[in-house]
């Protein structure tokens, strides 16, 4: 079982469902669907909390019918994989179009390893820190 680290990233990501809503207007008009979509994101990705930038970005990226299928857990395996890649990379990559990035440092792939690896382009620690044994090595 993976160790749970209450990191700054996840803490800032928000512990409440309200913080996961992509926007007030959308939440008001379709709050339950938004909450269900966020729940699907968490369940598929294996994270208890997910930064708002990711859920909101994914919600904007996917067409309405895909978002509904994901929220109602009727999505095809390929659509679920597409959502997972979107959340893990911060980039929506439709099969028939160019990819669009909406998040970088928040991407879940970096959250999955953040106790040992910094997000590339951000400072990793004091100069020479890399000689130390990583906490999870």
């Amino acid at each position, binding site marked *: 079982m993976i160790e749970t680290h209450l990191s700054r990233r996840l803490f800032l990501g928000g512990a409440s469902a309200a913080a996961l809503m992509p926007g007030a207007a959308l939440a008001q008009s379709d709050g339950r669907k938004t909450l269900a979509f966020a729940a699907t994101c968490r369940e*598929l990705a*294996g994270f208890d909390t997910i930064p708002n930038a990711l859920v909101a970005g994914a919600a904007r990226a996917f067409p309405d019918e895909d978002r509904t299928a994901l929220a109602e857990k009727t999505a095809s395996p390929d659509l679920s994989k597409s959502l997972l*890649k979107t959340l893990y990379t911060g980039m929506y990559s439709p099969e028939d179009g*160019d990819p669009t990035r909406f998040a970088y440092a928040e991407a879940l792939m970096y959250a999955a*390893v953040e106790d040992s690896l910094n997000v590339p382009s951000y400072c990793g620690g004091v*100069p020479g820190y890399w*000689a130390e044994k*990583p906490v*999870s090595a």
Partner: protein
Amino acid sequence: MVAHRAAQAGLKVSILCDGPQVQREDLVDRFRSSDPQTMMSPYPPVPHAPQPQVARTDDYLIQKGPHAYDQQYIRAVGGTTWHWAAAAWRYLPNDMKLKSRYGVGRDWPLDYWDIEPWYQAAEEEMGVAGPEDAPFDAPRSAPYPMPAAPLSYMDQVFHEKLTALGYDHVSAPQARNNQQVYDGRPPCCGNANCMPICPIGAQYSGNIAVEKAQAAGAELITNAVVHHLEVGDDGEIIAARYLTPSREEFRIEADRFVLAANGIEGPKILLMSTQENAPEGVANSSDMVGRNLMDHPGTSSSFDSEVPLWPGRGPNVISAITSLRDGDFRSEHAARKLMILNMNPVEGIAKAAIDEGLTGTELREAVRHRTARRQVITAFHEQLPDPSNRIRPSTEGKTDRLGLPRPEIHYDVGDYVARAAEDTRKRVERIAETLGATASSVEHNEGYLPNNHITGATIMGDDPRDSVVDADCRAHDHPNLWISSSSTFPSVSSVNVTLTIAALALRMGEHIVNEARP
């Protein structure tokens, strides 16, 4: 660096650059917001000066040979050192004597000790951190400017295993500030992003030399695509012609010219400059311009170590295996340098795990587990000069947006490299086994990977009949034209070429100043 030295000496210097001046912070922003993040994603498109892209080098380069010469480079002030890994190796003395020592390739027309002081000067200018008395590192007259960068935890584990296997494994010399401020730039804090952009300037890049030259009085003209050098009746270069993005042509005269336009664009300019006084192109009475194109044909192998080592902490490449840089085997097959890659591999791993159908905690755990264990060893193989490997202006009339011919390349990689690459892969399999990897986890790339070490196409030699420049990098055909590029190298060796370019540039700068101001 040549311009800086000349400007310091009070010469009137103009630097023409085909691309724009770029700012580090803008490049970092572009990288972070890029869709797919590649080696070129930080760098803005330059429509009037096309840059070969990572995914589609054939948008610009025209490939005609059995192997693609998929090099890519940056056309902006500072050039391709914006996205290097700061590897700052000296050639070994034997790297310059391939023909006389091993009966293959060509000798340099100068000796290692002729340029040793300039290697030292280049290391001090760029700020190189390196190990003392490391095996298969070149002999030196003074210490590295900074002590060697510490090995990452991963490198330390590799070091123990590789040493037990009998390899020499060393902290690589790197032009990156190691735990100290150097030349007003900060120490590396492990942003793990040397390629494609160091966000803080701890790593040396060529724009630094341009900025110093400007501060010393040099004039910088950007977005100026030089396409023709004019030759006078006495054989001297009298002017360079360049085009602006709107295709307006300008002409600039000078007493002396230095061509430093990389190993593809440089020879292309010479070959485009056909005229009455140079019917085959500038500096090309030997017919060697554009020929002898080399690179370091690369291999890359990945495997999963038994225990977590966490690649991706600190600079992108910290260490190397040097044992195969030299030896009698070079009469039969290529010298090599093997590197332990220290780049964060998580993106590819996450996508693959998702494609397998993993979800939830199982997915998250697999991404962690595999990322901690995914090891990559790459290798540079020494390629021999072959006149049939060449770059020339498109022979089919294919042009870029300015109407200039695109580079057409014929390239092959011979058996000398193939024999070494086969041996490299076997060695990596043995190393992987020592690190507890299963045989099934070992994967090798197919063919050869490009390494952007564009070498040989204005080759240096004593004989004007089969070389383009002399030992001072001065064109045999034109006494006031010098070429500053790895394109002058008669051998590519097995190490990165940048430090040798810099050493020869500093040496050239001194020659030019002494000649201009005796």
